[in-house]
């Protein structure tokens, strides 16, 4: 806007003078060039930052993943692609477990996010903004502290365990292999996925809510006028229109969930080790094999990149960004 305005005096000057002098033409050209340059000047610092500290590091991690050596002598780039085979053999179990946990987390988040977003978008009236603020409010207490709170909530002698035992749900959970005994749910896949669903649910709700809020409520009335049941209206009208939000929400849930290890460590035990924990140990912890940690990161990166690019191709970025 400001640049557009800047050209105007030059153009007016040319018109008033009837015959533009060489100097005026040159000044006009200079202003035009400056105007064309402005967006690049605005973009340059931020985009450069992202290229140097987001795009370039991807190359660093790939080169680290094919290094060889140990902590004492240092690591040397030998293009050892066999690192990738090694990590798959060593940690296949953790890789598959991370996929299982994050898929379950995404599914449960979707099941919870759909009614919640629907309620806020269509039934909450003027409480809409307040309720959306409540969905985001938990974010503002450190998430590690909130995750720890689940240890209190799910404790063996807590009220959740009491309810689950009374309703005879605990044998069901252990029967499905989600817990390991009938009197405890902590340090099991159940508590880990519970913490993940809790932590990532707002990421699922936000895009779905944004998509649903745009839906004209008269479309629901039209559905009802045509004798569609509430369920049929949801399935045939609301769901397809909210689909971009649903795809975006599940993506924004699955991708952080697959690399997360905070829930697995804080709420889980030795049997719930995920790929993030392995990477953490290899990169900065006791594992001490930087190239192995890097190779696992590259696998995770490529996996999520493929999913994301497929999504961008389908839905376009402008909608999300």
């Amino acid at each position, binding site marked *: 806007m400001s640049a557009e305005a800047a050209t105007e005096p030059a153009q007016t000057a040319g018109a008033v003078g009837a015959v533009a002098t060489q100097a005026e033409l040159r000044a006009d050209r200079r202003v035009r060039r400056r105007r064309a340059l*402005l967006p690049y000047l605005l973009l340059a610092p931020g985009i450069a930052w992202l290229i140097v500290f987001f795009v370039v590091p991807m190359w660093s991690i790939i080169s*680290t993943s094919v290094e060889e050596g140990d902590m004492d002598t240092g690591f040397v780039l030998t293009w050892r692609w066999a690192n990738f085979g090694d990590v798959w053999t060593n940690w296949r179990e953790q890789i598959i477990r991370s996929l299982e946990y994050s898929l379950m987390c995404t599914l449960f988040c979707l099941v919870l996010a759909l009614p919640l977003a629907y309620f806020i978008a269509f039934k909450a009236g003027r409480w809409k903004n307040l309720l959306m603020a409540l969905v985001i409010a938990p974010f503002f207490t450190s998430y590690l502290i909130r995750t720890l709170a689940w240890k*209190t909530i799910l404790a063996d002698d807590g009220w959740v365990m009491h309810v689950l035992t009374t309703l005879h749900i605990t044998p069901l959970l252990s029967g499905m292999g989600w817990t390991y005994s009938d009197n405890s749910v902590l340090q099991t896949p159940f508590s880990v996925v519970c913490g993940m669903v809790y932590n990532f649910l707002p990421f699922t709700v936000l895009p779905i809510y944004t998509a649903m809020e745009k839906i004209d409520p008269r479309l629901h009335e039209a559905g009802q006028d045509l004798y569609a049941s509430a369920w049929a209206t949801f399935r045939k009208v609301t769901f397809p229109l909210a689909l971009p939000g649903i795809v975006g929400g599940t*993506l924004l849930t699955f991708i952080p969930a697959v690399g997360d290890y905070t829930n697995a460590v804080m709420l889980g035990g030795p049997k719930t080790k995920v790929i993030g924990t392995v990477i953490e140990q290899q990169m900065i912890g006791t594992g001490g094999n930087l190239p192995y940690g890097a190779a696992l*990161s590259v696998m995770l990166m490529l996996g*999520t990149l493929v999913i994301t690019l497929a999504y961008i191709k389908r839905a376009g970025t402008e909608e999300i960004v």
Partner: protein
Amino acid sequence: MPAHPQVHHRPSMKTRSVAVLNWFRKHVIAIVAGLIFFFLLVPNAVVVWMSFNKPSGKYNVKWEQFSLDAWKNPLNDGILHDPLMLSLEIALVATLVATVLGTMIAFAIVRHSFKGRGFVNSVLFLPMAAPEIVMGTTLLALFLNTFGVGFLGFKSILIAHIMFCVSYVVITVKSRLNGMDPMLEKAAQDLYATPWQTFWRVTFPLVAPGIGAAALLSFALSFDDFIITEMTAGSSLTFPYWIWNAVQKGIPPQVNVIGSLMLVITLAGIAVAEVPKWVKATKSH
């Protein structure tokens, strides 16, 4: 029906159960939403509740005894001072830099045409879609390959935080810019305002709430970040990193005090932003 009023006075079991069923069907979505809100908000309540606990051992997991000890000594004899200050410093600087860089990008995207729009969008979108552990390890590899272990600390954490905050600033400011009436700026120009005056007197005040929201979001993201921080921190401890290390040794209730304070400040912020709107809405009804 008016001929048989007694039917209405004594509804049969069947009609009553139908009424209950209908009420339930009508409100089922509200009940489900209520339960999900309960699920989302209970941990926050537990955080606040446990800040008043007086644990006998090192672990503040089980409720034992009411006490104000932690609130009277929120920094736990100064143990929490350094991690909190480091987190605050990083969050403030990261917010400042990311907000300026992100706002500039948002203006370029909404107000200008340029080549390579698809590339810019991808570079902005990917950091939001990449798992944190990937961003953390890639940056760690870059820092180790280029500068060595000595570089890890305040600088490396700051670089990482600015990187992941920029995209969120761009979306927040962009949506505010998109919602603005461009005619207001045209009007200013028609009234012979210079481009500079138009920007500072019309555009900026209108976009300011969006920039403010973006800054708050950046601050929260940076202050709370753990995974990327852990990878790039070296031996520096931010507040979340301190908590992570303390989990095995036992978390003092002071951590809950700080968590509660963060929540109270946020809720107060929401109230300040929302209450005037409700009052307005109630009056106009």
